C-alpha cells in the first residue's frame, strides 16, 4: 500500500491562506489547499504560476476560425462553384458569421476540455476521499494536503508543522487496497 500524504483542516479562508503562505515559505511544492469555493489571492499564497490554459484556448479559437472560413471558401470557390444570385464565388463577407461561430465553438471546447486536462479530471478515485471529514471541503471545510512525493516530505515533521500553523484533525492518508 502506497502512502499519499498528510491533510490538515483549517477554520476559515483567511486561516487557509495564511497556512498556504507558511507551507510555501517552508519550501513545500507538492501540496494543495482545498476549499468549497475559489479563494481570492490563494494562487500567490501558494506560489502558483499562471495557468497555461489560455494559450490552448487561443489556439483552438484560431483553428476554429480558419476551419470555418476555409470550409466555406473551399465549398463555394473550389469544390462546387455555383452561380447564386449572380454573386461571386468567393463571397467573403457572407462567410464572417460562420467563421465567428466556429471560432467561439472551438475555443469553448478548448476551455472546458483543456480545463479538465490540466486538472486531470475526471479522476474518480483519489486517496483524499478515504477521509470522512475531508468531504466537508465541498461545503464549509478548508484543508491543506501535503503529498508524500514532495522532496521535503518527512511525515513527523510535516504533522508537527501543520499542527503549529493551526491545522486540526490531521490525518495521514494512504492509498489502501
Amino acid at each position, binding site marked *: 500500500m502506497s502512502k499519499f500524504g498528510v491533510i490538515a483542516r483549517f477554520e476559515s479562508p483567511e486561516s487557509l491562506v495564511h497556512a498556504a503562505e507558511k507551507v510555501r515559505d517552508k519550501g513545500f511544492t507538492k501540496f494543495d489547499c482545498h476549499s468549497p469555493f475559489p479563494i481570492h489571492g490563494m494562487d500567490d499564497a501558494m506560489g502558483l504560476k499562471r495557468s497555461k490554459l489560455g494559450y490552448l484556448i487561443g489556439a483552438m479559437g484560431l483553428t476554429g476560425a480558419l476551419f470555418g472560413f476555409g470550409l466555406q471558401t473551399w465549398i463555394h470557390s473550389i469544390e462546387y*462553384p*455555383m*452561380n*447564386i*444570385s*449572380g*454573386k*461571386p*464565388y468567393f*463571397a467573403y*463577407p457572407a462567410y464572417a458569421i460562420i467563421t465567428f461561430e466556429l471560432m467561439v465553438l472551438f475555443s469553448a471546447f478548448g476551455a472546458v476540455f483543456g480545463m479538465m486536462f490540466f486538472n486531470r479530471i475526471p479522476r474518480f478515485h483519489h486517496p483524499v476521499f478515504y477521509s470522512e471529514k475531508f468531504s466537508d471541503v465541498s461545503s464549509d471545510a478548508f484543508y491543506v494536503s501535503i503529498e508524500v512525493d514532495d522532496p521535503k516530505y518527512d511525515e513527523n515533521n510535516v504533522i508537527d508543522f501543520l499542527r503549529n500553523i493551526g491545522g486540526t484533525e490531521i490525518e495521514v492518508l494512504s492509498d489502501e487496497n
Partner: protein
Amino acid sequence: MSQIEKKNQEFVKTNAAALDKENNQEFGYWKSLKDISSEEDYNRFLKQSEHNIDNGLSRRNFLSLIAASVALAGLEGCKKPVQKIIPYVEAEIGTIPGIPKYYASTLPFKNNALGVVIENHDERPVKVEGNEKHPATMGKSNSFAQASTLEMYDPDRARGIKFKGNNIDWSEYLKFAKSLNETDGKGLAVLMQESSSPTIKSIKEDFKKNLPNANWVVYESINNENLYDGIEKAFSKRLQPLYRLENAQIIVSLGSDFLGVDDNNIYHTRKFAQNRDIVDENSTMNRLYVAESSISSTGSSADHRLNVAQHEMENLLAELAYELKVLGLPINANKVKGPNNLWIKAAAKDLMSNEGESILLGGSSLSKEFHQLIALINHQLNAPVDYYPLSLSQVSSINDFKSLCDDMKKGKIENLIILGANPVYDSPADFDFAKSLSKVKNTVHLTNIVDETSKLCSWNIAMNHYFECWGDAMTYDGFVSVVQPQIMPLFDSRSAIQVLSPIVYSKEQSAYDTVKSVWKSKIIKKGNFDRAWDKVLHDGLFEKPLFNSVDVKPSSKASTKVLNDNFKLDNNKFEIIFNPSSSVYDGRYANNGWLQEIPKPVTSLTWDNAALISLKVAKKLNIKNGQMLEIAVGSKTIKIPAFITPGQNQKSISLELGYGRKFEGRIGNGVGFNVYPLRTSNNSCFVLNASIKVLNETYPLASTQDHHGLEEDKYAAPGFDDLAPKEAQSRIPELVKQSTLDYYQDNPDWVQKKVEQHKPDKKKSWADHSMYNPDWDYSKGPQWGMSIDLTSCTSCNACSIACQSENNIPVVGKEQVMKGREMHWIRIDNYFSGDPDNPEVSTQSVACVHCELAPCETVCPVAATTHSSDGVNQMTYNRCLGTRYCANNCPYKVRKFNFYNYTRDLPEVVQMAMNPDVSIRFRGVMEKCTYCYQRVSAARISAENENREIKDGDFQVACQQSCPADAIKFGDINDPNSEVSKAKRRNRDYALLAHLGTAPRTTYLAKIRNQNPMLVSNSYNGGSH
C-alpha cells in the same frame, strides 16, 4: 370489313399523319403508309397505348421514392427497387421512344373548328397547341382547347354502353338501331348540339332521305340564333358573319364579349391584337369602344367602356343609329334621349370618320332587330365583315326544339337519339324537358359523362373524346379540317357517326370510312384523292375552302322604333343577365379541374359562380361578399351568393351559366349554383324585374386575389378601411405602367424616364449595382428572356392553363384556394381604379421574372435554387428542403409551395395527362416558372446534335405558344434579331419593381390606351410617384 380491320386502318392513317413538325413531309407520310398495314400494327397500337400508360405513371412518383428510400433508411433501403424495361415487339417506323410526335387534328367547338396540333409522348396525347396552318387558330389556342387534355383523361367519363343502367353489348344497340331503320322514321327524333361537320351533315341528308318522317333537331343553350335571324332580316340570307378585325381601326362593341367567351375568340383576339402591336410612338393602334353591363375580358381591354344595363343596350343602338343617320342608312331613326350622349357621339364620329375601317359588334344575347340594325349599319359603314353561307353547318333553332318538346309531351316521339347535348340541364326552364323526356319510350344518350340527361335515358353510350375518334369540322369561312384519333378509345366509347350509321344505313360504318367517303364525294373533288387526303392528314385541313364569302345588299328597311320602348324596369327591381362561364361555358366543362380552378378574368373567382352586383347596390342593400341572395323571377327563385364587382351595372345582376350540376363528376358535381331555372325560352339572355332578397347566411367564395384596389379593407383598424385600397391604387401606375396613345406620342420616352428615376447610378445597368463584381458574364451563349405586352394582353387565361398542362401543375381544390395556396405558375393580377361603376382595369400576368440578381437564390440554405449559365433562375425540386425562405424573399410572390402532397390521390388515368418531361412535385417542395426548361433543353440538345447554334423560333414556351394575343415573346436576348430582343428594344419596355435591382429577365411593355380626346379619362399618364 370487320370492326377490327377498320380500327386497324384508322391506326394506319393516324400513323400516316406522323410528322416532324418542321421538315420531310414527303418522307413523313409516304413511307409509313406503304410500310404498315397489318393486324399486328393494330395490336401493337393497342399495346403501346397500354404500356405507355406505365411510362407516364412512373415519372410522377419520383419524390415519393426518395421519401421511401429514406424512410427505410437501412442500407438495404439504399438498394433501388427492381425496374423493368418493356420494349416494343416490333419497331415502330420513325419512332424513338421518348421523342414526342405531333399530329394535326381539330377541336370541334359548336359550329366552328379549332385546328390543333397534339403532342404525343409514346402514343399518349398530353398537350394541345394551335395549328399554325389553320385559319381559326393560327397556331394559338384558348383555355378550353388547352384544358381538353384533362377532359380526355377524366376518370369520371362514361364507359361502354348501358341499357337502363346495366352494361350491355354494342351489338344489342345495333339491333335496336337497325330496327329503327326499318321504319319510315315516324316518332323518331335526333337531338344534337351545333356542329359544322360535313360528315354529320351528309349523314343528316341521308337520314332525311331514308327516314322521311323522322325529326332532326339542333339545340345549343348558348347560340347565335338572334344574330343569324337579324342578318336574315337585313339581307334576306341566313349568313355567318366573320369580323376581319385586323382591318378595323375602330371597333364598337355593344354587349359583345368577342375577346372573351364568345365564339371564335381565338381568331378575334389574334386579329384584334395585330392592330395593338405598338412598335414605337409612330405606330398606330385600333380603338375599342365597349358598352356592357358587367365587366368582361373585352370590357377590361376597352379604351372606352360604357356601363349600360342590358335592356338599355337597344336604346343605345338606336341613339347610335341616329348619330349615324348621315350615312344614309335604310333606317328611320329618330333621336332618343339618353344619358350617354357623349360616348355615343364620340363612337359615331369615329365610326364614320374611319369608314371602311370601322366595325360594330353586337352581343349575341340581343334581339334580332338589334342585329338586323347592326348588320345594316356595318354594311353602310362598309365594315370589314365577311358573310359566309350557313347552309353547311347545323345551328341551333329554338323553334325546332320547342316543337320537339311539344311532340314529346304529346307522346308523338317514341325514339329519341340525343347526341352529346344535355337538355335536361340546360334547356329553357319553361320547356320542362325532363317531363317531356319521360313520355318518350326509347331514349339514347351519347354522352361523355353520365349527366342529368343520361340518368333519364334508357340507353347510355359513352362518347369519344376528339382525341379518340375520326371526324371533321369546318370554320366559318369554309375551311374543312379533319379530326383524327391520337389514341384508341380508353373507355370503350363511340362517336356520333358510329351511333347514327346503323340507324341511317342499317349497318355500322366505321367513322374513318364515313369521313373518308364524305371527303371523297364532297370536299376533295379534284385531283389524286389519296395524295390530297394524306396531305390533309398532315396539315390538318384542306387548303381550299368549301365556299367563298357572299355579297350582301340590304333587303329590308329597318326601324329603330322596334327597339325603343320594349323594356321597362320597375324600381327596386333588377335585370338578370345570363352569361356563358369563362370556365365551364354552358356547363360542359364542369368536371374539368383545370378550368374550375382557373381564376376568372376580372373577378379572380374560382370553383363557383356568383351573382355579380355593383358596389353601390351592395352598399345600399348592405350586402357583403358571399352573402346569399334569393333571386326571384316570377314564380321561380334561386339562391346564390353575391360577389361585389366593380363595373357592374347598378340595375343588373350577372349570373354565370353552367354551374350547380348534379351529375356523376367528382370534380364538378354540386359546384356553384344552377341558374338555368330562371332562364326561359323567350328571355334566354336576360330577364327583367327580378327581385332580390338578402338572406343572412353567407357562403365561402374562393377568390385568388384579395385586393383589386377598390374594395375596402374590412379588418383594418376602425376608421382606416380605405388605407389598403388607397395604397393599392397608388401602386397600380408603378406596377402596370400605362398611358394614353396621345401622351405616349408626345412623350415617347416616359417609360424609360420613370425606370431611370430609381437608379442609383444612371449610367450603370441594374446588374452593375451589385456589391462586388460578379464572376458571371451573361454576354455569351443564348440568354433567355421574355417580354409581355400589356397593351395586347386580354387576360384570357390561355397562358395560365397552357402552363398548367405543360408543367403538370396540380389542382388543389376550393379549400386550398381559399387558404391562398393555388399553384398556378402564372398569376393574372387585375387592378381597378377610378370610378367604381366604370373602372379602368389594369391586368398583368405575373410569373417568375427570372431575376439576374435573384433574392430567392441567395437565401436558400441548400442551394436548391440557383442560376444557370443561360440566365435562368432554376428551381431544383429534388434538392428542395422546403424552408420556404425563397418564397418569402421573392418581391413578386411568384413561388408556389406544395403544402400537401397534392398529387397523392390523383387517379391513374389523370396521370396519363402528365408531361413526362417534367417532374411531378412532392409535398414540401417549392416550384415556379422554369421558362419551360424542358423545351429549352430539347431544343438546345437537338441544335447541338446538329452542330448548329440554337436559333430564334426553334421552340416556343407554353404560354407564348398559346397566347392568342401574341403578347408574350420569348427567346435569346443576346441575339439582336430575336423577337424578344426586338420587343425589349421598344421604348415601352420596363422591368417590374426595377428599383429593387433584381434585374429581371422578364420585362413588360407598358399598357397604351388609345383614347378619344373627346372623352379622355385615363388617370395615369406616366403615373404617380
